[in-house]
């Protein structure tokens, strides 16, 4: 290709400039919150926007960790997320395996039906779910929320993992079957190791879903001591927003940190582990 090298260099410089500007502009809401969270309260309004806090302090973070129920909320969230992920996988892996490996009557109909059911926005189920949990005595319990979160993610998990299982060659399993392995052994020894990317991605998406939900948590948990991080932060901003904006910034950035870390760790696996396209809701 013949191209004027000088012209090319100028163009590249402009492209770089554009991206530097774009990245900074795109990160402004986060950078601003970061700056506010490290700035001592009374100078926030005086100095306005600067990426470097003019009056550096860790007070807001100390405040969040020690005088707010932050650690309690964190523990609650981790507990909920852990059990939801485990149960979701325990429920969805065998089903995904069945729909991928067996050909049985009603299979196609069920798959199609699940697709239709998935069209109903989960938020619109809230009242029915409330009454359901209420009748089972599960309001204000983690068991209730775990069932709701698991149910909400099962169709996605099933579809996503089934799609991946479909791409794994069945020959190895046939060989194992001939050697006398049963389904359980086949799933544990062959399918799961081969399907690791999709299992990890599915698990992480379930985890993120629990971590980021506030609306079910605030509606189904009535005791603030049981709140998750998202529910706690939601109430924090709803009740004390104006006075405690630096505190809220610090708390929300802290709450996001684990998700940010996990997200960037699995980003590479995202491509191979997601079969039905990326989903973030």
């Amino acid at each position, binding site marked *: 290709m013949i191209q004027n090298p000088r012209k*090319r260099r100028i163009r590249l410089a402009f492209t770089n400039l554009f991206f530097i500007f774009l990245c900074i502009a*795109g990160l402004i809401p986060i950078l601003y919150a970061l700056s506010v969270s490290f700035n001592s309260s009374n100078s926030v309004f005086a100095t306005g926007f600067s990426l470097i806090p003019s009056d550096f302090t860790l007070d807001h973070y100390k405040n969040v960790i020690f005088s707010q129920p932050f650690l309690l909320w964190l523990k609650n969230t981790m507990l909920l997320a852990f059990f939801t992920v485990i149960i979701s996988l325990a429920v969805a892996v065998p089903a995904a395996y069945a729909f991928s490996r067996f050909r049985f009557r009603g299979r196609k109909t069920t798959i199609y039906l699940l697709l239709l059911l998935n069209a109903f*926005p989960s938020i619109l189920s809230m*009242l029915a779910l409330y009454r359901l949990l209420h009748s089972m005595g599960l309001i204000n319990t983690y068991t209730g929320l775990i069932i709701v979160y*698991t149910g909400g993610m099962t169709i996605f998990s099933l579809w996503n993992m089934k799609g991946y299982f479909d791409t794994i060659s069945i020959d190895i399993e046939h060989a194992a079957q001939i050697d006398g392995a049963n389904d359980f052994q086949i799933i544990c020894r062959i399918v799961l190791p081969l399907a690791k990317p999709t299992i990890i991605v599915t698990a992480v998406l379930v985890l993120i879903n629990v971590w980021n939900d506030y609306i079910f948590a605030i509606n189904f948990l009535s005791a603030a001591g049981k709140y998750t991080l998202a529910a706690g932060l*939601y109430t924090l901003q*709803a009740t004390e927003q104006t006075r405690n904006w630096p505190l809220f910034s610090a708390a929300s950035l802290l709450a996001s940190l684990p998700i940010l870390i996990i997200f960037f760790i699995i980003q590479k696996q995202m491509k191979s582990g997601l079969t039905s396209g990326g989903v973030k809701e």
Partner: protein
Amino acid sequence: MNKKSRPWFYSFPALAVISLIILFPILYTGYLSFTNMNIYHWFNPGIIGFENYRKALFVFDSGFLPALLRTILWTVLNMAIQVAVSFLISVLLNSEGLVLKNFYKTLLMFPWAMPAYVSILLWRLGIFNSQFGLLNHWLSLLKIEPVNWLNGNLSAFLCCMVVNLWMAFPFMILTMDGAIQSIDKSYYESAVLEGAGTFTKMTKITYPMIRPIIMPAVILTTFVTFKQFDTVYLMTQQVGSKTGADIHTVITYAYEKAFITSNYGYSAAISILIFIIIIALTVISKKYIREGGAQ
């Protein structure tokens, strides 16, 4: 266990929890939609036939049809801007010799990685807040009176769009970037030999080549945008801190009718209508992908 019942045995737990958490609420909502259940008839709702549906579909003032039109506008605008801007950014990201590409890409992914509710609240409190938000701070530097960004319908709608686009760009950019990388470089080389410019390459090679690859992601995002609840709710409709703007989408509208004004039967009818609309769109888009979309 015989071979026929084994797959059902394996999928039983999944199907059971789906029946309980997904199927039951839909059926129950369907039942409620034919009743007058509200705050006065909480324990003894009566069957009132299609009255709720009639009110939703034929009484314009009831608010459902305006919300539906607004939701369609919201979805179309969001998707059009999202696809167009992401396309330009992805093409630029793939400029020859852009050494820092991966660095930029990582920074651009942050809005996707952040929990959505945190992002929305940071925008609301940090950027748009009328007293100490960044926008009004900048205006004050220009000696312009502060603006209540989230109070007016139009400005609140635009603010919500900005936030929604901000959260949605990364996924679209990532998808398009992946699609662009899958294009065989030799197409561009021969195009350059033929004398094609940047614009021609973009419209005649890049766009048609990535179209079938990105289509599933675009359709998926369209549904997510249509069903979007958090942005509009957290920005303008929070219980106890409504901003005064009425920019309900169908989902926030249904939510409000149930949980704020306690009009459960009516809200249920709205929910079923939304369900039908989404199913219809799903069927159409499936057909589209199968026939024309994948070309």
